[in-house]
């Protein structure tokens, strides 16, 4: 018996058929076991399924390895080159105007989003900014520096299939835990009072809502009316609705900026031109700046984060403004 099982496990198939409790069907006492056709096919099927499982696992890993915004202009996916190391394969970046809006050309190829849609933007300034981003890549393409391209790809593709209501609700949710409403009961509180209170007052006056600041960890409770007012205000922003389906690009931009700054009130300040990007980032990082002044600055951590935050916030704000404006130049007649 053992000799039969031994031969099944080692000689016949590496997949360990013996573990399934399969006996050699052709076993007869005294005769050496011979592999039958059915047994051989079963062995091959096991090997195949094992290989398929292993490939699926590997495929899942490689799919998650590449970062999101990797627009490929070739129809065939170049799976062997990881997206993080793509060399700059184009010389010229130019802008053309198509039916849906402005398009970007890399050499002679049109830029496409990660889901292979054509990359069109309604605003010329935004198209020029995206083209400059692509143009500023040296040698290798660093996708993590191309924030505007990322934002446009997200709003064009909408990979999470979120419509504007969901985005607005997500942005308003930030009100609950807005960073500028929780004040620490420490010496930091003076700095916070000086810096954050004017912004809160401006927001209350501008939107005619009531919000206060709190010292507890839970934050102030936002009355429902405030939420409605702000939600309707956000919804009133002009949509990037050149194409048929309702593209939620401006709420996507608003939510992006709110996520970066961890504050909805600061985002509103940016949208309404009340705060510059540097100011908003400073207000968002107030505690960190306080600690830096007290304990010192670590360049490779603090500055790194600061510049990345500034870049993302600036990209988001620019995206919101360029998507929600309509440029009309009225020539006034000079009156003498």
């Amino acid at each position, binding site marked *: 018996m053992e000799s039969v099982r031994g031969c099944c496990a080692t000689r016949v198939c590496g997949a360990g058929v013996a573990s399934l409790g399969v006996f050699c069907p052709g076993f007869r006492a005294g005769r050496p076991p011979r592999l039958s056709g059915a047994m051989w096919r079963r062995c091959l099927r096991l090997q195949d399924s094992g290989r398929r499982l292993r490939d699926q696992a590997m495929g899942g890993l490689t799919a998650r390895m590449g970062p999101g915004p990797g627009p490929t202009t070739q129809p065939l996916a170049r799976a062997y080159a990881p997206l993080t190391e793509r060399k700059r394969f184009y010389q010229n970046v130019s802008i053309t105007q198509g039916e849906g809006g402005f398009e970007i050309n890399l050499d002679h190829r049109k830029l496409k989003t990660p889901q292979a849609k054509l990359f069109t933007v309604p605003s010329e300034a935004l198209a020029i900014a995206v083209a400059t981003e692509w143009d500023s890549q040296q040698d290798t393409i660093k996708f993590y520096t191309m924030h505007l391209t990322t934002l446009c790809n997200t709003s064009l593709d909408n990979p999470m299939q979120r419509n504007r209501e969901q985005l607005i609700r997500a942005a308003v949710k930030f009100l609950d835990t807005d960073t500028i409403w929780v004040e620490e009961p420490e010496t930091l509180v003076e700095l916070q009072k000086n810096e954050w209170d004017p912004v809160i007052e401006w927001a209350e006056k501008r939107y005619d809502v009531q919000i206060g600041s709190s010292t507890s960890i839970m934050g102030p409770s936002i009355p429902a009316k405030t939420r409605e007012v702000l939600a309707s205000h956000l919804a009133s922003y002009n949509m990037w609705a050149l194409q048929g389906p309702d593209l939620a690009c401006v709420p996507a931009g608003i939510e992006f900026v709110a996520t970066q700054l961890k504050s909805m009130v600061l985002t509103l300040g940016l949208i309404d031109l009340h705060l510059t990007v*540097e100011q908003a980032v400073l207000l968002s990082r107030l505690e960190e700046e306080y600690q830096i002044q007290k304990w010192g600055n670590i360049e490779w951590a603090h500055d790194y984060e600061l510049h990345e935050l500034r870049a993302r916030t600036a990209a988001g704000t*620019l995206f919101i403004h360029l998507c929600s404006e309509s440029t009309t130049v009225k020539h006034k007649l000079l009156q003498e």
Partner: protein
Amino acid sequence: MAALGSPARTMRGLLRELRFVSAATGRPYRGSAAYRYLVKAFRAHRVTGEKLCRAQHELHFQAATYLCLLRSVRAHVALHQEFHGKGERSVEESAGMVGLKLPRQPGGKGWEP
């Protein structure tokens, strides 16, 4: 907003950043689409009859935002290159850090082909 500064300063900063961008392509920055658009936009909004022009302020704000974007992206990339982009040290470097040198055998080691 007083914190924005003067438009001339923003424009100068933008031109400087565009020069850095054009250093990547090697072509002069005056030919780039961004330069032409900026010059046209700034000129168009300079002459206005109103004292407080919201469109001018909007353009200045957008220009300042774009300047912040370009500046911070460049600073971020520079910091990344300097601190986070070096990768691993080679064996020779690591040995050199503690004052050792790798041995060299003129005939090659015995097991090498």
